[in-house]
Structures are given as C-alpha cells and as structure tokens.
C-alpha cells in the first residue's frame, strides 16, 4: 500500500485556509460596524469548498511536467465575496448587523477548531501507524 503524503489531510487544509480568510472578512465587518456607508460582506464558503473538492477529485488535473510550469493549486481558488442583504438597513448606509456578524464569527471559529481537530487526528493516526507500537 502506498500512502500519498500529499493527500493525507484531504480537503481540510483548504478548508482551514478558507475559514481563516472568512474570519478576516467577518473581523472587517465587526471593525466597520460604525463606519457610514460601509457594506457588510461575506464569502460563499460552500461554493468555493465544493469547487475545491471537485478539483481535488477530478482525474483531469493539470500536471506540472516541466520546471517552468506553474502548479495549479486549488487553494488559490478565487475567493468570491458578496454583499450581505441587511434585515434592518440603517440611515447612514451601513449594512453591518452586529449580532449577525458575531454569530457568524463564532460559527466560523468553531468550524476552524473542528477542522484543526480533524487534522490533528490525521497526524496522530499517521504517527501511530509509523510507530507501530
């Protein structure tokens, strides 16, 4: 059996990067909660992750066969951001709804931690297999 070390962590590495990026977007929303005309934004997490998963599983991967080739990494998938639709728009043009942003930030944090846990599990499993005790 051959273990491909590149694929040990699977989709989790990409998910981790994406969660970190989303936390930045949400932090910017929270920071700009009092800025006039600021429009709250978010990233389409599901869309990006599913496209990343598709890329990872598809057989038609681009191969870097020459030293000059640029690798086609799925982590560099373009992160699409969209504007939130506010439930209660405020008079100064700001669309940040603090409670929503805080809920989203906490949710994102928990998901990040869960992904970290998965990766830790993989590492531990691999260590166990290597030691063979």
């Amino acid at each position, binding site marked *: 059996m051959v273990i491909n070390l590149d694929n040990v962590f699977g989709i989790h590495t990409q998910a*981790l990067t994406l969660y970190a990026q989303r*936390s*930045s977007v949400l932090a910017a929303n*929270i*920071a700009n909660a*009092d800025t006039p005309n600021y429009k709250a934004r978010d990233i389409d997490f599901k869309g990006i992750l599913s496209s990343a998963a598709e890329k990872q599983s598809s057989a038609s991967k681009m191969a870097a066969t020459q030293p000059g080739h640029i690798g086609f990494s799925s982590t560099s998938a373009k992160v699409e951001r969209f504007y939130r639709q506010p439930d209660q728009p405020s008079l100064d043009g700001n669309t940040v709804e603090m409670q929503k942003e805080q809920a989203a930030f906490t949710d994102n944090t928990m998901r990040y931690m869960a992904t970290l846990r998965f*990766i830790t599990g993989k590492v531990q499993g691999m260590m166990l297999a290597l030691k063979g005790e």
Partner: protein
Amino acid sequence: MSLLGNFDIAGSALSAQSIRLNTVASNLANAETVSSTAEGTYRARQPEFETVFNDSLHNRQNMGVRVRQVLESTAAPTQQYHPEHPMADDKGYIYLPNVNAIEEMANMMSASRSYQSNVEVMNTSKQLLMRTLSLGQ
C-alpha cells in the same frame, strides 16, 4: 496567514473607537463651560469614521477603520440671560456649549460595546492561532 491580519483590523477599530470615547469625554467635560461670546463657545465634537483599504493584501480584503476627521457640531450654542454672571456680555447673556449630555452617554455606550466586540475578535483570533501553532501535538 489571514488570521494575523485580524489583529490589524481589530486594532484599527480599537484605536478609532477610543478616539470616539475621547471626544465623548471631551464633550461631557466641557458641557458646562460658559463663554461670553457665541463664537468662543465650545462646540460638541464627533469623529467621522472611514474604511481603510489595504490593496497590497488579497485584493482589498484586509479592511480596517480609521478616523478621517473630527467634526465640530454646527448647532447654535445655548444663550442664557444671566446679568449677574461674571462672564456675561454687555447685554447680560452667557453662552453654553451645544453638547447634548444624553446623546453623549448613548454614544459612549455604543462606542464601548463596539470596543468590546473588537477585543473579542482579537482574543478569538489569538486562540485560533495558538491552536494552529500546536497542531498535531
């Protein structure tokens, strides 16, 4: 790592909110400052926030906030007839600042709530980074 950028974002918000708290303190401190002329009266100050775009990082993703300028309220100062007052002008009027204490208190609470939220963001980001650093252990 974009988690490190969270500290810049939340940090910029902390300094902006503390400037806002500062103007509230200044307004409340000067709420009763009497003057003999309408022009020389203290005027309520309000900071104006704006978003900072950081173009160098991930096409305008890293966005903090800063105070663009501190505006003075244009509302007219309160005129009161107090001929016995030592600061009264020839006609016996004194001028009080256009500071609305209730407005300032509400502003203060809003600023401190926003400050707290940003501190929370920093704490959470720190925890996530620490967990990431101890990955696989």
